[in-house]
């Protein structure tokens, strides 16, 4: 076991992927010598060469579009989008091409492309550097959308994503890049939880708290705080946002009868809406309260001096938990 930051865990996972399969490529802006603005690809170009770790022109549609072409030629490209707010120039290639090529070809073509996106706020950044656009991808059939919440998952899930023959949108919780935890770098993937499965992070009995990415830690902390008040939260890290692991979710909510979904994204039309709607349908008789959603308000991401008010935090999670007992 080694103590790694989430960023370094991704780096190690990418290194394994490059080592294991000569067809794996990394491409994006500044992923080479610089190692990416968050250093996730640090040292990889040096070790694997410029043909495998590719500094691309500054054009995201081009990154994804050429990655699709490389995948058609048998490569397995991992694209880095520098920040969440810069994925939109590539949106067309992602939703019209990447997501649909398998369907269009009646299964004859696979596009094993991973698109890594550092997402979410809380780092005091300027506009467009703190977005949470995951719901836009989760509404697009043909894409797998995942997010890791801690270094161990970061290490395993990035490798699983590279191994997936489906395209994967891989959301990295940027404000957790510097969080540290133990990771078993020597361990293979055999023991890892499958990529499409949610994980019960904190078992509990009173309220199910569903979350992913940067809010995983926040919710785990909320569980500790709630325990001091005598309330038992079951925190589930969704990990796979599309498809959702409905079985794990439903099992928990049937047990607890209460549910709070937490994400940084705007609540309106966010992933929490889908989860709430589905849970309500599946657990109608077990729900003691409506599924409550905690997330950002329905405004653009504000200037960073306001982000602490905009983003959900431990208090707002606990507040929602309290409110589920008000029904």
């Amino acid at each position: 076991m080694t103590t790694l930051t989430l960023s370094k865990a991704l780096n190690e996972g990418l290194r394994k992927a490059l080592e294991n399969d000569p067809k794996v490529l990394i491409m994006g802006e500044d992923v080479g010598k610089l190692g990416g603005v968050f250093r996730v690809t640090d040292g990889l170009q040096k070790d694997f060469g410029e043909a495998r770790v590719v500094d691309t022109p500054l054009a995201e549609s081009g990154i994804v579009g050429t990655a699709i072409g490389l995948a058609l030629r048998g490569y397995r490209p991992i694209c880095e989008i520098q920040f969440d707010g810069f994925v939109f120039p590539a949106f067309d290639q992602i939703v019209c091409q990447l997501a649909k090529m398998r369907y269009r070809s009646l299964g004859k073509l696979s596009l094993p492309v991973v698109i890594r996106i550092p997402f979410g706020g809380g780092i005091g950044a300027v506009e467009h550097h703190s977005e949470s656009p995951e719901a836009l991808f989760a509404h697009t059939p043909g894409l797998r959308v995942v997010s890791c919440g801690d270094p161990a998952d970061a290490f395993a899930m990035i490798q699983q994503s590279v191994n997936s023959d489906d395209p994967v949108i891989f959301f990295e919780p940027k404000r957790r890049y510097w969080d540290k935890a133990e990771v078993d770098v020597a361990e293979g993937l055999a023991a890892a939880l499958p990529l499409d499965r949610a994980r019960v992070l904190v078992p509990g009995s009173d309220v199910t708290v569903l979350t992913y990415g940067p809010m995983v830690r926040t919710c785990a902390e909320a569980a500790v705080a709630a325990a001091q008040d005598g309330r038992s939260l079951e925190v589930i890290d969704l990990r796979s946002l599309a498809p959702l692991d409905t079985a794990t979710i439903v099992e928990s909510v049937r047990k607890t009868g209460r549910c709070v979904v937490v994400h940084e994204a705007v609540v309106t039309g966010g992933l929490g809406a889908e989860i709430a709607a589905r849970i309500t349908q599946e657990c109608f008789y077990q729900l003691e309260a409506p599924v409550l959603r905690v997330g950002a308000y329905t405004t653009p991401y504000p200037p960073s001096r306001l982000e602490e008010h905009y983003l959900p935090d431990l208090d707002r999670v606990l507040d929602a938990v309290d409110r589920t007992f008000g029904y």
Partner: protein
Amino acid sequence: MAVKDAGQAASSQSRGARGRASRSAAAVADRPPEQAELVQLLTPEGERVKHPDYPLDITAAEVKGLYRDLVIVRRIDFEAIALQRQGELGIWASLLGQEAAQVGSGRALGPRDMAFPTYREHGVAWCRGLDPMKLLELFRGVSHGGWDPTEHNFHLYTIVIGSQTLHATGYAMGIQRDGAVGEDGEAVIVYFGDGATSQGDVNEAFIYASVNNAPVVFFCQNNQWAISEPLERQSRVPLYQRASGFGFPGVRVDGNDVFACLAVTRKAMQAAREGQGPTLIEAYTYRMGAHTTTDDPTRYRLSAELEAWKLKDPIERVKQYLIRTEQVEMSFFDEVDAEAAEVGGQVRAACQTMPDPLPESMFDDVYTSRTAQNAAERAEFDAYLDSFVGEEAAR
């Protein structure tokens, strides 16, 4: 009305003199004059002309082969239009007038080269060996394509304008990584229209291709129209010149001259295979038909234009050349017509008997393996369908 006038002034400026000559430090002054060289090897009258850069040694058998291709692809197109009129197809995008551009470039490819089409490259599909039924499946609404692109090295049709230029460029970057550039190398050709040159994606493809020196040939069929918009809405200079701004060669070829299209594409593909990087070919041609079967070109263009282009017909000139050079018996033309009619008949028959896909098939091939959600939705759908069976039986 003031604003209207201002607008008119604005648009007349864009047509008027631009005073470029007086701006000598500007790069544009060094550009060649706009009456660009159009590479032509066969005149509309069927006369063979020479071009110093594009010597073309071509046997009688090859010319006959090209003629046969041209006639057959036109016939398939003709059948498809008829089938659409009869309600057998949802829509059809005709290649009428563009046969030479497609057959010339298509026959310039080797089996290992890869082609990325738009939605109109039926002639290229034919040259690559794809069963025309596959195209009809798409336009009938039976599939979104669904052929295996690796079988004939002919990618799926792409409908979102310009997207495929990036796929082609990426594929070419893969060829580089495979070490398949150089003697006996491979290359990619990607098709797109004049309108497509305005899309960001196409220009990004030019950038990715040039900075990587990727083995890809950009084959633009300038058929003068993007649905109802004439070329002037997309560019104020000839399209082949676009390439120079990105640092690679551009060439304009007579797109109705199958010899010239063959020779120019061959040379560009060979350059790409050998590691000389991308070329932009502008095949100057004309869309003789409607944009698609749902379009009505009389709303936006004059028939005189059509008449002028009829005189440049890509098939007629090959026929005249064959007659003039006495390379064929007159019976040859009847034979080709008969063969084309037979292919047409097969296409018609196969289309009319083409089964619809099974309803449940819509749940297939979303992901590599069936997800739980997909299985659940499919089961729900089956149950829902079943619920009618009882009802119908009861009636």
